[in-house]
């Protein structure tokens, strides 16, 4: 099938190449371009007809002219998969980047990835302990969940992601996670930070890295996460691994999507992003989960930076509609020197309710988490009032709540980058902090848990 080389390029525009009259070319087919200087580029068919073929070139079209040879390889984009992927570092198009040999494939997997039949899915219910109190208590991570970090430039989302990668474990069993890390348009500095941390903790041996950096072609970014997720699916559903996929930065991915859309002269949606961005993102995020009859799982931890800290920007907005919650990083908390600066108020884990409790975490978890949340929310609100009327104007209850909100940030949120708190430690800490408020104001706590866990009753 592959063989014939065409020199029928008519137009080149941005990352797109237009060709006349070829053999029947498949939609989505992979293309090889040979430039006059002998160098090679790769691309994929975006539109195909009897008369015209549109090819998107991953490496950009610099150097392409009308004499460039175009060869259709007769197949759609596939990733060679094998157990040997574990421990490897690949570039954004799936080629070795670590100087190691080519992957010897057990098979090839279509990178677009088919949708999981909802009837074949299994509801995620296993608690993942991240060792970070704010997450474990308030936005519990569940195996098979897709839980993004909504961050913004200049905030320590990478540290949080790495801490989770280091510490994530199941309390119910000793099964371990392997990490599939996917870099999309991040800087070499950020990448080195991730890499050296994974290396230092030994996690690298159990990880697969797909790396597209800021100076790599933007178009390539569109396939990098698909490669990573294809590898994750293979490892999870063929080799029973529990895979934690971290990808960063979704915002760069979306910008690449917009770039292609603009080059194709598509009608733009909000803020110039293509109208199909929701579907496109869903095709990444929905590749998380558990399926019946397979042991492995895919948990996704995407990182995105909200342009201008704006949560209503199309990227976080569309993501929030697909993912099962979000962890929101706050500039204000970061500014006051708190790590991890997680703002629990807009953060949410949709799978938490069905997971936490006696069997997985602890019987009082729900009650404690509700009370912590409510008291902190009220305390935060009072700060605004105090700014106007002064602290003396508050009644006793409000004073206690106000002081609690400070403790919440200082003792509960704040923890070390290497501090790994067990869920019991986290919940005990919650009780300790809540005991600074008189019990009669703790209306969301069940009496039976107060009797059992309140520090006054424990000794």
């Amino acid at each position, binding site marked *: 099938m592959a063989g014939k080389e065409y020199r029928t390029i008519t137009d080149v525009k941005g990352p797109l190449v237009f060709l006349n009259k070829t053999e029947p070319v498949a939609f989505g087919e992979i293309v090889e371009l040979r430039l006059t200087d002998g160098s090679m580029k790769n691309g994929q068919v975006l539109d195909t007809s009897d008369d015209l073929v549109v090819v998107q070139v991953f490496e950009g079209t610099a150097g392409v002219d009308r004499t460039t040879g175009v060869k259709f390889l007769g197949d759609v984009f596939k990733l060679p998969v094998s157990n040997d992927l574990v421990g490897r570092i690949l570039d954004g198009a799936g080629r070795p980047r670590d100087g190691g040999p080519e992957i010897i494939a057990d098979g090839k997997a279509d990178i677009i990835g088919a949708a999981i039949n909802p009837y074949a899915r299994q509801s995620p219910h296993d608690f993942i302990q991240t060792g970070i109190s704010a997450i474990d208590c308030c936005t519990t991570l569940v195996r098979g969940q897709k839980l993004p970090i909504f961050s913004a430039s200049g905030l320590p989302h990478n540290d949080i992601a790495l801490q989770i990668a280091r510490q994530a474990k199941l309390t119910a069993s000793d099964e371990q996670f392997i990490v599939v890390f996917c870099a999309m348009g991040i800087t070499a500095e950020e990448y080195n930070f991730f890499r050296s941390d994974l290396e230092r903790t030994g996690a690298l041996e159990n990880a697969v890295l797909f790396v597209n950096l800021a100076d790599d072609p933007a178009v390539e970014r569109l396939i990098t996460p698909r490669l990573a997720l294809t590898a994750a699916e293979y490892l999870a559903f063929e080799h029973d691994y529990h895979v934690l996929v971290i990808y960063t930065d979704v915002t760069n991915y979306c910008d690449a999507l917009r770039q292609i859309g603009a080059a194709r002269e598509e009608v*733009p949606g909000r803020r110039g992003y293509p109208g*199909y961005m929701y579907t496109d993102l869903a095709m990444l995020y929905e590749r998380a989960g558990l399926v019946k009859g397979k042991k492995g799982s895919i948990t996704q931890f995407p990182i995105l930076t909200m342009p201008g800290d704006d949560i209503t920007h199309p990227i976080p907005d569309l993501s929030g509609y697909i993912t099962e919650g979000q962890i929101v990083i706050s500039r204000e908390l970061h500014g006051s020197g708190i790590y991890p600066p997680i703002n629990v108020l807009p953060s949410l884990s949709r799978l938490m309710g069905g997971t936490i409790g006696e069997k997985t975490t602890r019987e009082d978890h729900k009650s404690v988490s509700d009370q912590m949340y409510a008291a902190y929310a009220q305390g935060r609100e009072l700060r605004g009032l105090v700014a106007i009327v002064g602290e003396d104007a508050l009644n006793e209850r409000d004073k206690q709540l106000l002081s609690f909100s400070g403790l919440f940030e200082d003792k509960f949120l704040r923890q070390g980058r290497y501090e790994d708190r067990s869920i019991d430690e986290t919940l005990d800490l919650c009780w300790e902090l809540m005991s600074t408020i008189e019990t009669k104001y703790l209306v969301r706590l069940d009496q039976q848990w107060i009797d059992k866990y309140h520090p006054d009753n424990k000794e």
Partner: protein
Amino acid sequence: MSKNGQIYRISGPVVTAIGLNAKMYDVVRVGDEGLMGEVIELHGEKAVIQVYEDTSGVRPGEPVTNTGQTLSVQLGPGLLTQIYDGIQRPLPILLEKMGTFITRGVDADGLDQEKKWTFEPTAKKGDKVEGGHVVGTVQETETIAHKIMIPPNTSGTIKSIKGGDFTVSETVCVLDDGTEIAMMQRWPVRAPRPFKQKYAPDTPLVTGMRILDFLFPLAKGGAAGIPGPFGSGKTVTQQSLAKFSDAQIVVYIGCGERGNEMTEVLDEFPELIDPNTGKPLMNRTVMIANTSNMPVAAREASVYTGITIAEYFRDMGYDVALMADSTSRWAEAMREISSRLEEMPGEEGYPAYLSSRLAEFYERAGRVETLEGEDGSVTVIGAVSPPGGDISEPVSQGTLRIVKVFWGLDAPLARQRHFPAINWLNSYSLYPQSLDQWFKDNIAADFPEVRTEISSLLQVEAELQEIVQLVGSDALPVDQQLTLEVARMIREYFLQQNAFHEIDAFTGVQQQYLMAKAILTFQSEAKNAIEAGGMLEDVVNVPARSNLMRSRFEDNYLDRIEGLVADMTKEIAAAAEEN
């Protein structure tokens, strides 16, 4: 020009074929794998097709075959308890044929063609029948009798009819002109099914959610929109409606949403008991799941598939409720197809026909006289997911122009963990006038007045809150402080409802009325007590009041509420006397 043509161009889910003799909306098979598609545009020789499956790897020159049929669903016994994709392929069958992942080129019947159902004739030889007339029944699930109807546009005299066990395609009835009637019929999804006439709705769809039934009621046969940003509880609300509303049949469309949510429904519904019949909820439910990463053209079709099934049950004389979560994803599917067709866009890239498509869809709701003269209804509840929660966008606006009930979900309320996070200040229902007679006849003569009092208290609270924000509540006069206390009781006791609590999740209308009355009693008693010299603090904090409020989580609250109110009245009076 023949039945067969070949592919000329492929661009994502849009394929152009030449040499195909096709009519608009004909269903075609595309390529060597026979992918299912639908003709959506004709240009001279060329037919533009939207394909319901992934088109990667398909090449120009591959064949296209016209089936000559429009996109139709199979209607008959076997619909209930089933879960379909957007084009009525049963997901369990797809799992069997394709494995865990949904691949392509697999065809599956909407109804099980092998299974035998027991058909009991209700018509007899010599009866004159027309389209829509019931000729027999099948007990499809424990609670639902599936009525077998003569397909629309068919009529005659029954020559023979027989009871017994049949598959859905076997003939159970023959008309004098030789027309054979099977239990299964087909209907094109994009065409509304016929009925005699539409009535004005006069009965509420009781949902068991206090804020909805009491303040913003929806009529059987009405249409409601639920817009809300992510995390505000759209899906939880839709699921509660699917669980507890007193419709006889529920069609739940998961349109472009999360896979795990559908799985959750699938896990949960067979376990849950329908409060109206005492049987598993699944018995009355048909589900359609086209998750966000399943093909976008099938997502476009899914709402039509759903509403056609809903209309079919309506034609049997049932009250049907249809939940579509989310119509925004449906609109986005339209936008995506439209942009592939290079159509001139309207607002925000949506096609110019967006609002007319939305209107056509919601217009398929209604309370009707069926062809047989029965009363049936389809109630449509559409979730809307406005970008950034801003409802000035085209889908929200297009929806609000048509629906008569608006349940506005609100992010700040959700953040305060006030659920259901329906904003009582901007939500509305235009049905109270037509439903008040029902409430007066079935609940209480002063029902409308009680509702007005409750909602005006909430209005007053909103105004007072603005002052409180500035000066604190202590600066208000005592009577206004009491108003705030009463409004807080409305919010915490009445409006907040725990969708996951066994007892609190569903409240009958009678109990809703008594709870509202209890609040008003508290208000008037507290007012009297304060006028008689009682301290506000003492009066509002009587233990019997918190007992009244807390007990709603316990069994038999309806029977106990009046006693609890009497206790509260006594304690409030006593609190006044202490001074």
